[in-house]
């Protein structure tokens, strides 16, 4: 299936609907007085978009809009993930005191716009579309990160994000221009074909890939492009930090996978891929993966202040884990990655949600505000947080273990034992700082003055769902695994 502009419209309901809604919410902002209603509308919009994506799942795969966007299981799966992140973020924002104090008018529209960009990142099929959607996400994220206008940290975060992001995307588009020069096309599949037939141009291609990787690595917060993450997470409102940590990262992974697997590699049979163009980017990414997780975990060890900052470093480490699934260049690896990112969504949003609940009650988000949480009325969030954190560590019977298990399985299957050992060593390191939060919550007694943490039903519902998801997927994950398995199919051509 290869459709032109008009014929494609009927296959793009979710994105169209989102685009329309962004405008609608902006306009409604002018007439509606109670701004929370806009949040409810945004929530509804995302829910409808999710249904739209689900409906598309059964449709034929193919290319849309003159091959600039694809419709395939892989893209739809990531669109689902992105939309679910948006859903959780909006839900969290509605229950956040921090957001309630802000001037919310445009917040919801920008959030939806960002979601739209991410949905396109998941399905872009050429460099231009990829760049545009990524940049669209970046621009909206800069605004969201700095949304707490009167918070100096937020302003700093936003500015830092903007400057790093500007440099990274500049490097990326420069790299893309080299690729265009080498392959004569912007479209992923055409690039692959050109590289296959034109023979090798290793050095320029290598330079181009490293530059492109700067932009993508920035989005997934891979070492050495991670520097923005801790500051931005710390400064941004908590729901936004969660959105950046999960939604934006997931979308960037989708774009990265599609670019590398359909433009820079070709299927080699037996569920494996081989690189084209004579550049060994796999080794490069392998090193990036090992460095990212090691750096993220070691840096997180020192974080005894802000929990958000700690989660930022842990997010860097998790990008490194997920990259392990990337570098094996097999369907097993892809499937493991998809599975992992899904699980990561549950547990990471969950962790941010608990941080938000504590912040709602105490107005603080440092580690000390968690002291004795289990013993001062917050037993439910404390237990949930412990589950999320142990799941992030990768301990059974939680979903994070299964995610890591598949990643390690894919790595061991390709006999990359060294990478597997680095990965498991990192899991041990991560236990230390995750357990520190658990220790503070359970093993320390409250000293008084931390305030009582209350669970309201609004946040409680989301917390319950995420917790149940994390536990159930740790015990019975077969259906999700099969779904992830189906979704490794990339539309090529």
């Amino acid at each position, binding site marked *: 299936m290869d459709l032109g502009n008009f014929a494609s419209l009927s296959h793009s309901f979710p994105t169209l609907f989102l685009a329309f809604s962004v405008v609608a919410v902006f306009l409604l902002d002018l007439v509606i007085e109670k701004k929370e209603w806009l949040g409810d509308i945004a929530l509804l919009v995302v829910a409808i978009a999710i249904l739209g994506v689900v409906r598309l799942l059964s449709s034929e795969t193919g290319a849309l809009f003159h091959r600039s966007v694809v419709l395939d299981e892989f893209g739809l799966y990531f669109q689902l993930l992105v939309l679910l992140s948006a859903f959780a973020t909006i839900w969290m924002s509605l229950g956040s005191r921090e957001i309630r104090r802000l001037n919310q008018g445009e917040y919801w529209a920008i959030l939806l716009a960002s979601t739209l960009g991410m949905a396109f990142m998941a399905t872009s099929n050429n460099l231009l579309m990829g760049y545009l959607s990524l940049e669209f996400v970046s621009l909206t994220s800069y605004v969201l990160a700095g949304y707490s206008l009167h918070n100096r940290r937020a302003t700093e975060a936003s500015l830092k994000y903007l400057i790093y992001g500007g440099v990274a995307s500049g490097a990326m588009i420069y790299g893309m221009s080299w690729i265009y020069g080498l392959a004569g096309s912007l479209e992923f599949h055409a690039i692959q074909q050109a590289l296959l037939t034109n023979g090798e141009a290793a050095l320029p291609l290598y330079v181009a890939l490293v530059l492109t990787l700067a932009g993508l690595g920035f989005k997934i917060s891979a070492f050495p492009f991670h520097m923005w993450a801790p500051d931005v997470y710390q400064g941004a409102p908590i729901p936004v930090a969660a959105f950046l940590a999960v939604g934006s990262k997931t979308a960037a992974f989708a774009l990265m996978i599609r670019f590398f697997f359909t433009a820079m590699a070709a299927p080699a049979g037996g569920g494996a891929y081989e690189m084209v163009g004579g550049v060994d980017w796999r080794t490069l990414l392998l090193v990036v993966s090992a460095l990212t997780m090691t750096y993220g975990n070691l840096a997180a060890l020192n974080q005894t202040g802000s929990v958000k900052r700690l989660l930022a470093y842990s997010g860097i480490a998790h990008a490194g884990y997920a990259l392990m699934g990337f570098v094996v260049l097999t369907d097993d690896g892809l499937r493991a990655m998809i599975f992992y990112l899904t699980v990561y969504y549950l547990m990471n949003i969950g962790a941010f949600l608990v941080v938000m609940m504590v912040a709602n009650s105490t107005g603080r988000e440092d580690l000390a505000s968690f002291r004795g949480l289990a013993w001062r009325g917050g037993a439910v969030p404390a237990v949930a947080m412990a589950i999320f954190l*142990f799941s992030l560590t990768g*301990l*059974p*019977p939680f979903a994070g*273990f299964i995610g890591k*298990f598949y990643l*390690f*399985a894919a790595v*061991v*299957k390709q006999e990359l*034992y060294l990478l*597997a*050992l680095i990965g*498991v*060593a990192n*899991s*041990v390191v991560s*236990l*230390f700082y995750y*357990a520190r939060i*658990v*220790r503070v919550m*359970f*093993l*320390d007694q409250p000293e008084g003055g931390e305030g009582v943490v209350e669970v309201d039903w609004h946040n409680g519902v989301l917390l319950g769902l995420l917790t149940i998801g994390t536990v159930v997927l740790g015990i*019975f*994950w*077969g259906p999700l*695994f*099969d779904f992830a*398995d189906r979704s490794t199919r990339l539309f090529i051509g």
Partner: protein
Amino acid sequence: MLTWMIFTPLIGAALILLLPKKAEAAIKWVALAATVPPLIMAFQLYGSFDRTTAEMQLVQRVPWIPSFNIEYYVGIDGISITMVLLTALLSTICIVASWNIDKAVKAYFPLFLLLDTAMMGVFCSLDFFLFFVFWEVMLLPMYFLIGIWGGPRREYAAIKFFLYTMVGSVLMLVAMLALYFYNDPHTFDLVELARRAPTYSANFQRFAWIALFIGFAIKIPAFPFHTWLPDAHVEAPTAISVILAGVLLKMGTYGILRINYAILPLGTLEFAYYFLVVLGVINIIYGALCAMAQTDYKKLIAYSSISHMGYVMFGMATFTQQGLDGAVLQMFNHGTVTAMLFLLVGVIYDRAHHREINGFGGLASIMPFYTGWTALAFFAAMGLPGLSAFISEVLVLLGGWQHYPALTVVAAAAVVLTAGYMLWTMQRIYLGEPNEKYLDLPDINMREVGMLVPLAIIVIILGVYPKPVLSLIDVSLTHLNDVVLSAGQGPVASASDVLSVR
């Protein structure tokens, strides 16, 4: 039936969560009620167990994640049944021993029952993945049980225990995956993996063996991975110390027998000779010497555990019927004896609120019954003839003599060290002038006696007549021994030469 044994405690834990926080007595009774059925089933199991076969019994298998060939697969043989019996017994006793817990009762007992489920699960699993899940699940309740209800340095001890074990288990994870992918069709089935053992290359066996061994050695704990144990023991509440020493340490040696021995026999032959046996002897001597230097009663018992686990390793590495029988019997005996010791330490700690060995004196005249029980436990730990540990230690040494006469002499000499620190402790705490501070300490009460009686009966019976346990384990161990030794006839000459020359 095994499934019921594994999950009854978990059901109890769920019930407790439904009870109101204030109903502390009800919570304790529910917890007890949840550990009694596995104990009754354990008795039944003991009666119905077929002692003439090395096959797995009471097998139950249900596909769990078919796409990855992961199964819920449980069953027991002669090696695991002893551990299952021990777990069932100690769990019930430890619930009784936890009766005086008064801090966050509603959290303590569910965690304890979760731990119970995980322990049972480890010993019954025949699917490597399932085994691993239970193995890891054990860590979480243990972390909280030490960390919340422990002594003054509990946080440090809890995280140290957690990190050490985690290091071991991630190595195990990699080895597990390597085994899975090495076989075609891929499988986690431990029985099947063992059956295919002859097809594994020597190098693969070596690496997998080391990775798995480190994982298990941390749990035993074998020197030099033992440093978590004294901390964890000293800080843990009494019941948890009992579980830790009585059951958790056995998982290390159990894992080595079940996985390293059965699945990687070549690796076992190579490393056992150089490595395992030496580590065993180091454990024996080093543990005893450390125990001698302790002034904390509980730490002393902790180091004595290290020493006694050395006999298990030593016996395993002999590859003789006596040695292996002795090793598994020692696992069981150490479980009962050390449980008594920790319970007895708990008794005195509850009364005096300290464990300084030199801070007591003359307790024999203040608490005569208590002293009598302690004397029995001490004599058992020393390996006095007529008590259970004597039999297992003698078997181990008999087995050892056939291959390693020099080391056997050293290990046997360590018995003197054990007697030394035990008797010296006896003298410092129980004999001599009574300490005036403690003249009015009440003697041991009925609940405490109730915990000790079953253990004492087992210790005495097995000391006179060890057949009830030996008959359970004998056939399985003979089979295991044959598997390992016959692997030595294969292509790797060095290991088989080493043993045949002897």
